[in-house]
């Protein structure tokens, strides 16, 4: 690569590490994604509440707050960067409460608490904008579109709806204009001719996209960045899109017209990727089944390799995927060991989504754009990754109920468990319905409405009927804890007769602190595990899966389709804290199993293949994911084994797998970093669906990552 451009990317990467360090110093640790956000200046802006509870709700308040923030939001220009702008404020997180108290859901709260449900009421974003629409219209075109429909849908409420969106666009444009002023003044003062030229081009790029339609690769990237930064600021929306297809026409036109070469393209793409670790997809079929891999897919990987930050790129694996792109992506995974890229399984995702009554063409467009989730850009409202049922907690409730009675058996336990799981699913689904009914009065999706097909056309919020489809996600968490608990009871008590019910009940009640409790715990812990093919544990996991899927699906009605998945995100610790000791030998308060994964240490041999096969088999199979969280042994993850790693990924997807998140972590490095995280500022781990700087995680979360690695 051109040495000057290479050096610029190095500078940006160093700056990024400094910014992360500053964020940790000033804001403390964060068990979440890096988001690309930087620290705002102290005291510059605060939210403007419109409710006595100190929070703000509804269209007007969200627009007022957003526009007020945009008006003062600091500008960010780095002369080494091709693009302007960074985001600084978690506007949605700065509220004291996230749900408008005028729309209470007290009737749901007892069961939400009882089953430890994350209900998602008042949560936002987690569906995908259609960036292609934005690139085709630009801010000016979006304004014209709103004005057009303002004339058609002309009730006072709708006119107000449109006016607020116009205000939001103007506020973003104002922010861009302030950047242009800053870039121009910096260019005027810049002595270094290369930097000066870059700043002048950056200013022109921004002048071209403030209203106009992007026409070059640089303009297209800058437009996406502005939309994304605005949306992040508004409510943390981090959804991406099919980035290679989105940028391909601009790249090819620039090349044809001699504006850029591949080095410049990689530089632009590096700057683009370092701006924010958005969830982008590479490769995979278009609506007609044709692979979307092109030259720029490779350049995106190359750029990602150059910056090598906490990236969230997903490669869509299927029969037609360009073999070189697939291999290259695994080479980078093994080379950098930074948790990127991830791999999604097209076959199962498409076949599963079609079972909801959709066409193959539509299903192929439902791509990896979020943490664990797929979405149809601009076409659906999903609540992806927002609603979770702690299945381990549901098990605990059932176990306590049964053991409080006279009879005990796995048959009876299953019957009671089924009833409670049904009640938990009902509560979660009712929570979603409540959210859909009132979310517009709570937190309308002002920015995501702009790049959705429907809200502007219909004059109504995307959460309120504006979207084309409503595919509503409910995830189960802690599957393995429940399955292994059933299995341990069946094996040790009913099949082998090794333990008596009173012994089990007392041991679990006392968290295995009773006399002989440790022996009982080990007997249970070393019982059959989900994750081992053909095991009793697997039998129970599949039984729970079938019930869970049936219960979730039965909630579907009219436009609302409910789709099951297995995912716990970063909630394994909090979910675990809510659950006492369980009959699989797990101690009270310790983390629950991760998503669809078996418990750590479930098998001693061939764990990767057992994992890949089991998780492929456990899929709910309606188009949402049950990711395979793969802690890959660093002694195995070497260049010479790239082909066999490709084979495992490919096989998992062929067997039914939907998403693979990979960590390749050296045990010694991780242990040292756990002791002194500041000394390892570049260490990135894939916590779940998202990557994070290890140094940004809290000690207990770092411990979780360490335990997961050591036990596997």
């Amino acid at each position, binding site marked *: 690569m051109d040495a000057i451009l290479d050096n610029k990317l190095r500078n940006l990467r160093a700056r990024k590490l400094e910014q992360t360090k500053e964020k940790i110093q000033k804001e403390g640790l964060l068990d979440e994604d890096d988001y690309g956000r930087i620290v705002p200046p102290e005291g510059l802006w605060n939210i403007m509440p419109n409710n006595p509870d100190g929070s703000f709700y509804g269209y007007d308040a969200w627009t007022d707050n957003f526009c007020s923030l945009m008006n003062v939001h600091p500008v960010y220009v780095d002369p080494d960067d091709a693009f302007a702008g960074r985001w600084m404020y978690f506007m949605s997180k700065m509220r004291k409460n996230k749900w408008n108290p005028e729309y209470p859901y007290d009737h749901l709260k007892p069961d939400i608490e009882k089953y430890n449900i994350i209900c998602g009421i008042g949560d936002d974003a987690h569906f995908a904008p259609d960036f292609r629409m934005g690139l085709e219209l630009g801010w000016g075109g979006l304004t014209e579109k709103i004005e057009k429909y303002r004339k058609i849908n002309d009730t006072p409420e709708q006119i107000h709806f449109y006016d607020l969106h116009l205000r939001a666009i103007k506020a973003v444009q104002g922010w861009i204009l302030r950047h242009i002023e800053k870039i121009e003044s910096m260019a005027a003062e810049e002595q270094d001719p290369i930097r000066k030229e870059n700043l002048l081009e950056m200013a022109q790029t921004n002048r071209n996209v403030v209203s106009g339609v992007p026409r070059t690769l640089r303009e297209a990237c800058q437009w996406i960045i502005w939309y994304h930064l605005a949306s992040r600021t508004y409510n943390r929306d981090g959804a991406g899109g099919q980035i290679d297809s989105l940028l391909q026409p601009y790249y090819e036109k620039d090349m044809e017209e001699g504006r850029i070469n591949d080095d410049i393209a990689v530089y632009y793409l590096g700057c683009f990727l370092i701006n924010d670790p958005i969830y982008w997809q590479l490769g995979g079929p278009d609506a007609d089944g044709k692979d979307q891999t092109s030259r720029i897919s490779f350049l995106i990987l190359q750029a990602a390799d150059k910056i090598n930050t906490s990236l969230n790129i997903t490669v869509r694996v299927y029969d037609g995927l360009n073999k070189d792109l697939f291999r290259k992506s695994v080479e980078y995974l093994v080379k950098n060991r930074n948790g990127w890229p991830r791999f999604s399984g097209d076959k199962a995702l498409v076949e599963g989504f079609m079972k909801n009554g959709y066409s193959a063409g539509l299903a192929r467009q439902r791509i990896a754009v979020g943490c664990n989730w797929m979405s149809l850009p601009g076409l659906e409202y999903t609540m992806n990754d927002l609603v979770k049922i702690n299945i381990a907690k549901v098990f605990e409730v059932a176990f306590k109920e049964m053991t409080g009675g006279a009879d005990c058996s796995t048959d009876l336990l299953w019957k009671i468990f089924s009833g409670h799981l049904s009640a938990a699913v009902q509560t979660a689904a009712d929570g979603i319905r409540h959210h859909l009914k009132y979310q517009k009065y709570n937190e309308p999706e002002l920015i995501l409405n702009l790049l959705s097909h429907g809200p502007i056309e219909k004059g109504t919020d995307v959460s309120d009927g504006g979207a084309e489809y409503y595919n509503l996600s409910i995830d189960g968490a802690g599957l393995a804890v429940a399955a292994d608990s059933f299995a341990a009871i069946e094996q040790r008590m009913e099949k082998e007769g090794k333990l008596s019910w009173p012994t089990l009940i007392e041991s679990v009640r006392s968290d295995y602190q009773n006399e002989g409790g440790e022996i*009982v715990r080990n007997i249970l812990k070393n019982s059959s595990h989900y994750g081992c093919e053909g095991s009793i544990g697997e039998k129970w996991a599949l039984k729970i899966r079938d019930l869970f899927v049936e219960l979730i699906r039965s909630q579907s009605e009219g436009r609302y389709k409910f789709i099951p998945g297995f995912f716990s995100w970063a909630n394994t610790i909090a979910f675990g804290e809510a659950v006492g000791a369980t009959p699989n030998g797990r101690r009270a308060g310790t983390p629950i199993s991760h998503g669809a994964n078996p418990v750590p240490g479930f098998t001693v*041999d061939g764990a990767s293949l057992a994992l890949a096969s089991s998780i492929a088999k456990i899929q709910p199979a309606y188009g949402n994911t049950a990711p395979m969280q793969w802690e890959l042994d660093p002694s195995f993850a070497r260049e010479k084994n790239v082909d066999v790693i490709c084979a495992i990924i490919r096989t998992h997807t062929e067997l039914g797998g939907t998403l693979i998140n990979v960590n390749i972590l050296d045990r010694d490095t991780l242990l040292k970093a756990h002791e002194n995280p500041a000394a390892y500022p570049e260490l990135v781990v894939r916590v779940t669906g998202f990557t994070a700087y290890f140094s940004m995680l809290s000690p207990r979360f770092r411990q979780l990552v360490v335990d997961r690695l050591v036990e596997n």
Partner: protein
Amino acid sequence: MTKGVITTLQRMSVHDGPGLRTVVFMKGCNMRCRWCHNPETWNPHRQVQYIREKCIRCLSCAAVCPNQVIRPSEDGPELDFGECRACGICADACCTGAISLVGREVGVEELWNEVRKDIPYFLNSGGGVTVSGGEPVLQKDFVREFLSVCRADGINTAIETNMAVKWADLDEVSPLVDFWMCDLKMSDSEKHKKWTGADNRTVVDNILKMAAAGRRMTVRTPIIPGVNDTAGEIEEICRLLAPFSGTVSYELMGFHTLGFSKYESMGIRNELEDAECLPADQLEELKKIPVKYNL
């Protein structure tokens, strides 16, 4: 159907032939290589294994042993391996898996059912099944039947053998094997006998016959510090194999101590207990020699 005795299956191996492989470790060996990292495969019969690190000192094992060969102590159970009859009652009583039985009699169908679950990984990686040990050819009838089943499903087959077996037995198995991995541990027969318990004349004869028959084969030498780690040793083997450089490849393997904890767990004396791993640069230097011979 013939039964075989195995110690374990190892899934996802990338060191025992091409692609992802499941390795079947047969129990029973006719050599006693002092550096062996699978000493649990020497004895053809069932044995007890005790892994101290897994033990929580509950002493349930001592309480149930019908032959009183497990003595309770403060450090946990002390097993008299020599007197143990491997009845397995202690293993059944052990709650952590610290005590277990090594050696399982399996039928071909049972083994195949365990192996076949990884067929999709074999096919996507160009891998398959490797029969290792111990010395697998000592159970040739079982191995032959098992490999026939693998072949019938189109699965690639490989064998790891010490070659110290009858040529007729090798010849019988040979049509069912896609790939051979044969050990030639040192060129000098007396020295070979001293370190492995068997001289190498049969080994060399069989390797040469196998090579002459055009079988696809990798000959391997584990490089043991102070035993066979000289250029002269390697040169000699290279000269022996050089005429077959088209079909035979030659691989040097670095000595490591990863399997040493098994000696203690099986109650076997480890004569190389204090040995050090082979330095990586020394191995790299020696690996240049076969290249000179196109091996």
